[in-house]
């Protein structure tokens, strides 16, 4: 026996610490219910300086009450927190760093706060652990970033702590599981407290996983991030959408997929019932989706194109529509939709044939990033869904279509499509010699450049100029030339000669619109199944109830 090697440590220190903290708020709690007005005091007892704290800011749902309250704790008591946040969408999320309550940040996505993160980083007010993809961050919650405290949001709770998160379940189950089963403390803000489980539409998170609930002063903030007004879709988006449908979706018979949030993909969704129908593609492509409930998908659903949609999160205004289409969406016994970001990210990683995304910069080899100088945006789920998962074993025709070699043990490849205009707003070229991310990475002492999608994962680049079928490239040099062939009049695009481009087109490695039988003059907005938000409401038979800011009537 190596008895002298046996550790003398206590094996239940986290459990004891949890008990200590929970006892400390005895007076502030009624069972599991913490009082709203003394909540800051409770937080100061439940959180300890140096803790790892998950604050639920998701893509859509924000635990904004908890964020506000956390920013009000005394930095002399609570400081040096290590924040784990899937998405940073609110000013309060960063106030806690400015006030010295927190120091370190691990996150996935920051839309509106990307400029400020950049600034705080430059001023050394904030340290970044890593910019993760969503499931990478959730995974680390179970490995080396196990939380001490989880702050989450739900629509409703009962007095025992059962939570109803409904269509906006999003990240909550993963965050709560990592905390609850490792003796961390789970605190949920709720819009409404009911007495009994029977008063909840359903239970999304069981009471025994939840330590405390608190009624928020106002309903949690939810961002309609995935609503695109068809009015703002331009003819160039229609053109690129037509090229995508004919030159990629139909060519490779893509049956299952994920779309990003851009106007390009919104155009594709609205072209399926019109242009897709003309091409006779219904039932052949786009049947199964890992997708947020995009309002622009309504016409395709109503026309019978879509078999199933699993959702990362909810979308404001889509609740009644989804509840009325349970064959399409995942719904609970109460009828309302249930989202789950972790599982949908897994579906988007392993389950689907294709990811179509957009970006701000692409380099000559197809590497891309949305991180530009002064803007640390993070990537959300794009790096996860926008890569070829080598663990995949199931074969579909689209996946097999990407195989290029005669090697008897070769495998297929997921379709990873970048769909970009050659120039961004303000005449900034999308195609660049070197991504800004390389410099930003160096300046911020990151061990690797914050690349969103690596070039070797990209199978297609689609611009208004044409499609480059990069999976057919025989060498890095050829890949670079193929990217250049569709990069228009950017410096990258001017770096390939026209004879080479003609040869690519002959070999089918690059296709221009006319090679696909598409005339740019055909690309009219009238081809879209809906031209306005009002049209989407009409398609949904009035079930879609758009947020006020999208109404123009």
């Amino acid at each position, binding site marked *: 026996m190596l008895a002298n090697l046996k550790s003398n440590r206590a094996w239940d220190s986290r459990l004891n610490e949890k008990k200590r903290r929970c006892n400390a708020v005895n007076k502030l709690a009624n069972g599991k219910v913490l009082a709203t007005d003394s909540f800051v005091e409770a937080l100061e007892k439940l959180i300890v300086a140096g803790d790892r704290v998950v604050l639920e800011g998701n893509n859509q749902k924000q635990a904004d009450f908890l964020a506000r309250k956390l920013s009000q704790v005394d930095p002399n008591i609570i400081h040096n927190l290590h924040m784990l946040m899937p998405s940073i969408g609110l000013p309060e999320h960063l106030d806690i760093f400015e006030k010295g309550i927190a120091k370190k940040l691990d996150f996935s996505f920051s839309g509106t706060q990307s400029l400020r993160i950049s600034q705080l980083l430059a001023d050394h007010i904030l340290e970044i652990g890593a910019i993760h993809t969503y499931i990478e961050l959730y995974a680390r919650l179970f490995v080396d970033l196990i939380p001490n405290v989880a702050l989450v949001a739900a629509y409703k709770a009962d007095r025992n702590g059962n939570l109803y998160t409904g269509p906006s379940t999003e990240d909550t189950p993963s965050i709560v599981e990592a905390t609850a089963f490792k003796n961390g403390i789970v605190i949920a803000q709720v819009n409404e407290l009911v007495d009994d489980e029977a008063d909840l539409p359903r239970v999304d998170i069981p009471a025994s996983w939840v330590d405390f609930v608190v009624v928020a002063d106002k309903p949690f903030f939810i961002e309609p991030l995935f609503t695109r007004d068809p009015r703002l879709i331009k003819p160039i988006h229609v053109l690129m959408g037509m090229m995508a449908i004919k030159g990629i979706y139909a060519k490779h018979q893509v049956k299952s997929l994920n779309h990003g949030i851009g106007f390009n993909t919104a155009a594709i969704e609205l072209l399926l019932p019109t242009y897709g129908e003309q091409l006779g593609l219904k039932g052949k492509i786009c049947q199964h989706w890992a997708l947020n409930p995009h309002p622009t998908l309504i016409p395709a659903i109503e026309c019978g194109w879509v078999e199933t949609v699993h959702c990362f999160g909810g979308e404001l205004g889509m609740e009644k529509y989804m509840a009325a289409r349970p064959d399409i969406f995942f719904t609970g016994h109460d009828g309302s939709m249930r989202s789950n970001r972790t599982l949908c990210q897994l579906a988007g990683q392993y389950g689907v044939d294709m990811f179509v995304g957009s970006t701000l910069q692409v380099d000559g080899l197809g590497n891309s990033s949305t991180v530009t100088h002064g803007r640390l945006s993070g990537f959300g789920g794009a790096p996860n869904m926008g890569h070829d998962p080598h663990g995949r074993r199931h074969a579909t025709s689209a996946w097999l279509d990407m195989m290029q070699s005669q090697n008897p043990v070769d495998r297929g490849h997921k379709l990873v499509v970048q769909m970009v205009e050659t120039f961004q707003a303000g005449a900034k070229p999308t195609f660049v010699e070197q991504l800004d991310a390389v410099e930003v990475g160096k300046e911020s002492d990151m061990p690797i450049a914050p690349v969103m999608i690596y070039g070797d994962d990209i199978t297609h680049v689609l611009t208004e100029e044409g499609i480059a079928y990069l999976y057919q490239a025989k060498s890095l040099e050829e890949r670079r030339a193929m990217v250049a062939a569709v990069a228009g009049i950017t410096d990258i695009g001017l770096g390939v000669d026209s004879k080479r481009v003609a040869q690519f087109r002959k070999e089918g490695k690059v296709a221009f619109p006319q090679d696909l039988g598409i005339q740019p003059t055909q690309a009219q907005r009238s081809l879209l*199944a809906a*031209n*306005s938000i009002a049209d989407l409401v009409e*398609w949904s038979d009035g079930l879609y109830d758009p947020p*006020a*800011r*999208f*109404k*123009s*009537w």
Partner: protein
Amino acid sequence: MPNRDMSFIELSARERARRILDQGSFRELLDPFEKITSPWLEPQGIVPEFDDGMVVAKGKFNGKPTVIIAIEGVFQGGSMGEVSGAKMAAALELAAEDNRSGIATQALLLFETGGVRLQEANLGLAAIADIHSAIVDLRRYVPVIGITAGTVGCFGGMSIAAGLCSYLVVTREARLGLNGPQVIEQEAGIEEYNSRDRPFIWSMTGGEVRYKNGFADIIVKDSVNDVKTAIIQCMNKGLPDTLRSDDYDYYLQKLNAIDTSKQADATLVKNIFGRGDRK
């Protein structure tokens, strides 16, 4: 599929004019190939357009000679500059001349405009004044019919032009108001008028409420056919018995009675101007 009539809002000014006129009768005056262009935009770093955002066309509507004047809302917010304003004013004046000379000419005005073009300042304002006079002249002979459909709507001095029309046709997406939301917010503060609160804006200036309160005569769906039907209805009515702009006693009395110390909202406006017959 919903709304399968052709959308009117989706169309450019030129297409709107072409589709309203009887098929094949559209003949543009001072078309883009004439290159009558604003001299003021280029020095201010703005790319001008060869029609200056104003489409003037002669043709037939329902078989009768018609001039149609359409403002392109996409170019500079449909703003009225020296050239675009002169095109509209001159077309209206010529139509009045024609009517005086015994050539009955109907007039249709398609408003998608934020009002005067700030870059051209007084020249634009002078043109708008000319337009006002020309409408008042012309409406003695034929009904002058205004249409505002959206997405820009009709604001500034051109909202007065809309008010001078014999008849005004709107969609629910149109807006009609003297000052645009941003201007009101800038001048009166966000508490008075939040320019990002879209339901509030439409509840005050949207097509539906303007119709209910009697500032527009017909509300139509966003459909080319429905717009044409509404125009025919207006033409069949002939010259109106009373013009809105002659009814100033009625409006002044209402305006003078408003308690401006209270925040205006949709209910207040409805209580003052609401017409019970329009639900």
